[in-house]
């Protein structure tokens, strides 16, 4: 199971999409990810949002800084393996006190078949905290919307940098 093939009852990507609309998020920067596939498709179909595919995750930190500079709200979607790529670029967020909302699907923590995902998956939260990004977590489908909403309020009303980790138990371990 991944975020593209969840049942209606556990359609947490739809809860995220609803929150992004409610918070008037305009720029959605992402590195393609199976866990976010359903959400990414919804974003591409939404005229009020601009989907911005990236070649690497740190690009999104810079793009969203530019968005905030110009008065638009943005979000960064990525997988846990991309968080380490962002560390130096997060100096932009920290030094300039830009808001940040990042939604991260976790790999390497629950039923992971690929050991290459474990090193970054086990240090994702620590990597964010290194750069003073607040970290929140959702492991149950029913908690996702509320957690994203709380993080969005911190970012867009409080100007904070916040990441929400979406647990691999929620997203579903990738199978081959």
């Amino acid at each position, binding site marked *: 199971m991944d975020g593209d093939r969840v049942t209606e009852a556990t359609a947490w990507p739809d809860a995220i999409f609803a929150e992004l609309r409610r918070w008037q998020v305009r720029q959605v920067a992402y590195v393609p990810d199976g866990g976010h596939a359903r959400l990414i498709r919804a974003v591409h179909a939404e005229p009020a949002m601009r989907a911005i595919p990236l070649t690497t995750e740190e690009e999104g930190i810079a793009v969203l800084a530019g968005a905030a500079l*110009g008065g638009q709200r943005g979000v960064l979607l990525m997988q846990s393996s991309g968080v380490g790529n962002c560390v130096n670029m997060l100096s932009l967020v920290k030094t300039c*006190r830009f808001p940040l909302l990042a939604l991260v699907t976790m790999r390497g923590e629950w039923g992971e078949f690929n050991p290459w995902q474990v090193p970054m998956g086990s240090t994702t939260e620590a990597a964010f905290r290194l750069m003073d990004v607040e970290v929140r977590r959702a492991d149950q489908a029913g908690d996702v919307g509320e957690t994203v909403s709380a993080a969005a309020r911190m970012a867009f009303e409080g100007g904070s940098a916040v990441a929400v980790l979406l647990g691999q138990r929620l997203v579903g371990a990738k199978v081959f």
Partner: protein
Amino acid sequence: MLDRRDVVARLLRDRGEMLVVTGLGAATYDVAAAGDDPRNFYLWGAMGGAALVGLGLALAQPDRPVVVVTGDGEQLMGLGAFATIALQAPANLTVVVLDNGLYGETGGQKSHTSGGTDLAAVARGCGIAQADRIKDEAGVEALAATIATRSAGPRVAVVEVDPAEAPRVLPSRDGAYTRGRFQAALGLAA
């Protein structure tokens, strides 16, 4: 050879509504030397990010020209930016790469552009059709004449400049301050 300070001063002379983002190092000093302005956002770090800050800004402010001024070393750290910009195709974004072929901040080591990497060709290969090399004053004048206007798509101008180091002109390093005054200049709540 073109003098980097002359090039930047010329490009920003009739800036109108132009919003400017600078890449760390000499490009930041060049833009500061042309005259501080609240609509300048100076990077002192985040290497590889200047063009992408410009992208997010250009998408958020589609009615204003956005100009990124950076160097070859800074852009080399973020080559993927050209592909990301090409997909979005903002008609109000121009990335000016001042190419001196070296890393001026760190001892003048040769950059990859000294060894054959052509950043304009990289940009074209990523899908930015309007990507040119500028080697003389006529080229600078042609760019200056259109830089504040909308175009058919994003533009990249790689300007070959004299590697001589210009005196440092240091703008504020307080990123929260330069961010806040930039947003205030646009009438946005910081």
